[in-house]
């Protein structure tokens, strides 16, 4: 008995040891948006080092591009970031058009603009549903996805696909499929009633933004989890090549739609949304405001879209002249670009895909160092990455 007493006294008096522990997170984890594995070294609740392990979804698109014609590649490039497939088709097609000197007709360019913005709304609504879910709020998921479904219906009525439109052609867009999933008939233009349905859908989207404002933006629990957490200073964001809302939330006023528009963005009126704090909350707020701006762009675009053909004259066999070109575009997640090295054949000699999420995620080891483990999911989710976009 006396010996036992003695032992317990010893245990209490010795300082608690917290040896470093290696914690494996993933690759199957609901908050990782795909298959991402994190190997974290933790000291108690504090993360001392984290190494993301990626490549579970590597499909080798850059090699596959070397054995495919340019027309065949459009079917693949929209699979890189499947949440905004159309937005990753556009810079590829425009790059090919630059090399060949073909220009898409104006109407086709406006259709590209409308669809890009619809995909931006769709992509950000996925964030609006998944991010609160990762923080423990389940209701916004239902509300945001409900309105996203309307946007996907619109997209389907034009392109025939919900995720992988494969709708761009060199020199224009594909003649649209009309009537949605029930009646598959080929029309030569946007389906009848598209503009009215778009107006109605945008009204709903703007309404759900207001609802999300009440439900999430002002929510104290959400704020407690996100305000001041995961701060990225502007200089670090630039050094790591972060772009899109992740960069703008750090106070950098940079949007490729304003700086280097490859679609007629100069003819619509919209604001670039920025925030100053660079924390998780600011990244959330930026995306919510961008949905409103995107809806504003769509509503203006359907008023301004000119009549005309959808396709320019393109030779049956597209041989792309020798040259090297890089075309980038503001994807919902940031700068998305393609560097094409053409040697004058039907297939690219080399295609470098600058995918947004790859650069956006590469800041993670730096960002998570010294953070608390419970904040890991909040920080990771706020970067809004898609693993298909990371792994290519």
């Amino acid at each position: 008995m006396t010996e036992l007493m003695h032992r317990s006294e010893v245990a209490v008096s010795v300082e608690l040891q917290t040896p470093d522990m290696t914690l494996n997170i993933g690759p199957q984890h609901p908050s990782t948006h795909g298959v991402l594995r994190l190997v974290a070294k933790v000291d108690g609740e504090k993360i001392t080092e984290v190494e993301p392990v990626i490549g579970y979804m590597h499909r080798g698109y850059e090699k596959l591009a070397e054995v495919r014609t340019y027309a065949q590649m459009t079917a693949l490039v929209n699979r890189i970031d499947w949440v905004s497939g159309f937005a990753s088709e556009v810079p590829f097609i425009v790059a090919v058009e630059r090399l060949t000197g073909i220009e898409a007709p104006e109407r086709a360019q406006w259709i590209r603009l409308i669809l890009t913005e619809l995909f931006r709304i769709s992509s950000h609504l996925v964030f609006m549903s998944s991010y609160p879910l990762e923080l423990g709020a389940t209701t916004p998921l239902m509300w945001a996805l409900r309105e996203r479904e309307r946007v996907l219906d619109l997209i389907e009525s034009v392109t025939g696909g919900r995720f992988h439109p494969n709708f761009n052609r060199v020199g224009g867009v594909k003649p649209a499929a009309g009537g949605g999933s029930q009646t598959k008939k080929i029309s030569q233009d946007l389906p009848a009633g598209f503009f009215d349905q778009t107006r109605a859908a945008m009204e709903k989207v703007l309404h759900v933004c207001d609802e999300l404002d009440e439900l999430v933006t002002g929510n104290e629990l959400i704020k407690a989890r996100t305000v001041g957490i995961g701060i990225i200073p502007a200089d670090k964001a630039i050094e790591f090549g972060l772009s899109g809302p992740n960069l703008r939330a750090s106070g950098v006023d940079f949007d490729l739609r304003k700086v280097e528009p490859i679609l007629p963005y100069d003819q619509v009126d919209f604001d670039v949304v920025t925030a100053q704090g660079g924390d998780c909350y600011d990244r959330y707020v930026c995306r919510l405001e961008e949905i409103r701006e995107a809806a504003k762009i769509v509503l203006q675009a359907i008023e301004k879209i000119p009549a005309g053909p959808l396709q320019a004259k393109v030779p049956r066999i597209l041989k792309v002249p020798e040259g090297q070109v890089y075309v980038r575009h503001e994807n919902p997640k940031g700068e998305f670009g393609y560097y094409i090295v053409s040697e004058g054949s039907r297939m690219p000699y080399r295609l470098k895909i600058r995918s947004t999420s790859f650069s956006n995620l590469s800041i993670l080891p730096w960002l998570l160092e010294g953070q608390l483990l419970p904040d890991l999911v909040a920080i990771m989710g706020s970067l809004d990455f898609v693993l298909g976009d990371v792994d290519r």
Partner: protein
Amino acid sequence: MAERLGALRWVAEFGTPRIYVDRSAWVETLGRARDEEGLAFFSWLSGIDWAKDAAVGDGVADPDALTERFEVICRLSSVVSGDAMHFLAEVPKDDPVIDSIVSVFAGAAWHERECHEMFGIDFRGHPYLAKLYLPDGFEGHPLRKSYPLLSREVKPWPGTVDVEDKPSLENPEVGGTS
């Protein structure tokens, strides 16, 4: 600007200059581009394999005139003006080594790891040059032109059997709608 940065030669194509620098001046040039020219945004880094023979796909336009080499290419841009430049350095195939720019741009770490496994180019001074996408035991460098596309070796492309004849240069009128 190209002369100021000590370019060997430069080409302006589609609005963005391609600046060729010597690989010994790689890190210094990129550092100066950031500090003196304001190109602080690290966009991406990758490689190009210039080879006379390609195991898959179409090769270069003029194999006889080609000097076999790797090129490391890095794009820097500015988030103030939108200006951008592509920096290229030649890396010989028998000595595929170049200095790492991680000390200048921390964001280059993953890009250099990818380039290392895909092309077999060594980045001297990289803190952790492990494989990024590929599994640990993977042999070969997939983006080299000498590397075959294994799925095509096992099963030929079914395109012509599957749907319709593909148009070719010899037979341009066959198949397809556009």
